[in-house]
């Protein structure tokens, strides 16, 4: 497919090209005082056209992140039943290229393995933000959060245990609706099976 882009680069005699360039920049200067031009993902990239101020006054204003933005991984639990979606299948631990996901599967009183992660830890400091764990998860329980300020004051704070990783599904639905819409069906369908195979009370997040 041929795309023709008008470049306006025909030769202009008498140095007119220089002057026209100056006029273009001057119009950018003047119009930058009258309009702001924030990009909103999902809609057209520059809703305001080419002109206008693009500056986002961080941290008071934040540019909205795309749904599929890969921040750091978080675990999800369902709102109504407060039960975790994770079944400790180790898919994410296997998919992680740097091997920072550490999972210990829970056992019931008999000693049989249950679909519940007794210990779940991620080392945020080494995370590549690649999102392969979220892609690998068949249950839609580990997803990528939209965090930007990930600095912590000490290394210990970067060792994320399960209670710090858990977030309600409603949170994720708000920040990444399109992604959640894609994995919701599978996740919810399998959740019932998972809850059935857990002993009572296991895998429920306290309020």
């Amino acid at each position, binding site marked *: 497919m041929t795309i023709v882009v008008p470049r306006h680069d025909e030769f202009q005699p008498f140095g007119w090209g220089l002057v026209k360039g100056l006029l273009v*920049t001057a119009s950018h*200067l003047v119009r930058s005082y009258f309009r702001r031009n924030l990009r909103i993902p999902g809609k057209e990239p520059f809703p305001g056209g080419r002109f206008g101020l*693009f*500056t986002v006054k961080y941290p008071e204003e934040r540019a909205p992140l795309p749904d599929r933005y890969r921040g750091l991984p978080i675990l999800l639990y369902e709102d109504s039943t407060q039960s975790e979606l994770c079944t400790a299948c180790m898919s994410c631990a296997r998919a992680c290229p740097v091997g920072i996901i550490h999972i210990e599967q829970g056992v019931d009183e008999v000693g049989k393995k249950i679909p519940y992660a007794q210990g779940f830890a991620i080392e945020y400091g080494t995370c590549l933000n690649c999102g392969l764990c979220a892609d690998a998860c068949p249950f839609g329980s580990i997803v990528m959060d939209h965090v930007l300020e990930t600095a912590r004051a000490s290394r210990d704070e970067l060792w994320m245990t399960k209670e710090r990783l858990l977030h309600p599904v409603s949170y994720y639905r708000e920040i990444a609706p399109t992604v959640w819409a894609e994995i919701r069906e599978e996740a919810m369908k399998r959740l019932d099976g998972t809850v059935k195979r857990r002993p009572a009370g296991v895998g429920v997040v306290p309020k």
Partner: protein
Amino acid sequence: MDLLIQGLNKLLGQVWPDWAVVLLAMVIVITLIFVMAPLTFMLLTWVLRKGIGRFADRMGPNRTGLGRFNKERTRQRWPLWGLLQPIADGVKMFTKEDITPDKGDKWLHRIAPVAAIVPAMLVFAVIPFGKNLLGVDLNVGVVYVVAVSSISTLALLIAGWSSNNKYSLLGAMRTAAQMVSYEVPMALSLVVPVLFAGSLSLNQIVQGQASWLGLRWYIFYFPLGTLAFFTYFISALAEVNHTPFDLPEADSEIVAGYVTEYSGMKFALFFMGEFMNQFLVCAFATVLFLGGWQGPGVQLGGVLGYLFSVFWFFLKTFSLYLVMLWIRGTWPRLRVDQLMNFAWKRLVPITLGNVLVSGVAVIVLSLLKK
């Protein structure tokens, strides 16, 4: 400075001997220059960053300023305008580690920034900032400015050589070649207002442009003065290594050219020298072509006349500086061979022809007047 000497004589004439008054006047003028030059530099860096930002559809620095936090510790509504950013930059440059290359020439490495900034400060002494407000009224002011600014080329060469770095040396050589090449059309286009004014003294040149509505400014002496202004402006852009002639020192081209191995205060001196040179070139162009401090309100006596003259001078100089910024935000740069080509094959013939025609015109006009 003559004004200052007169004023001081009135105050201290009875008590102090003559030479002490002159010495005091000199000390005051020098202190003023030492204070004003860095302040101008700071203002110019602020204008540069905000201006270039706006040309690029973004704000410049807007976090450092004189606002204060509101209760929620956010700076939501205070317009800060980034006015303290130059001070922040200054603090940054002061506190950076000073590195001298080991195998390079240590003494030359230290002297080069000084030799780059001293000529810039020397030129401050002859520019008339207002009615009779200039450090020294040399009657060869124009040539003095050109001569002293040519000393900074030597400083650049030394800087590039003493860094013991291939790219520094290459950048320095290219910069020096460019500056030396563009001095010729610059000096030639300066001959034209000198011909019109009949004097090399800057004060005389400004006073020769006194007119109603600025009609006798030399830029309006069509076509000779206008052409001279444009050739002077272009050559001056090349002299101060400004876009579109900043290949020898552009970041993406040769790291940083001759200042690659400089950090901290030495780099700050080079940076300051460059900005001061840009300001001085604009100031010089206003003095020679745009009527200097002339403008309405200058004829008033007393302090008001002086204030008006200073106001007009700075207005015109800053407008020219804004034009320089505009050019910086718009045009691409020329390659080194293209810029040398442009200097020798295009500008020199144009300026030579301009000088010839201006000379003839001045003689013909003076004959006609008789």
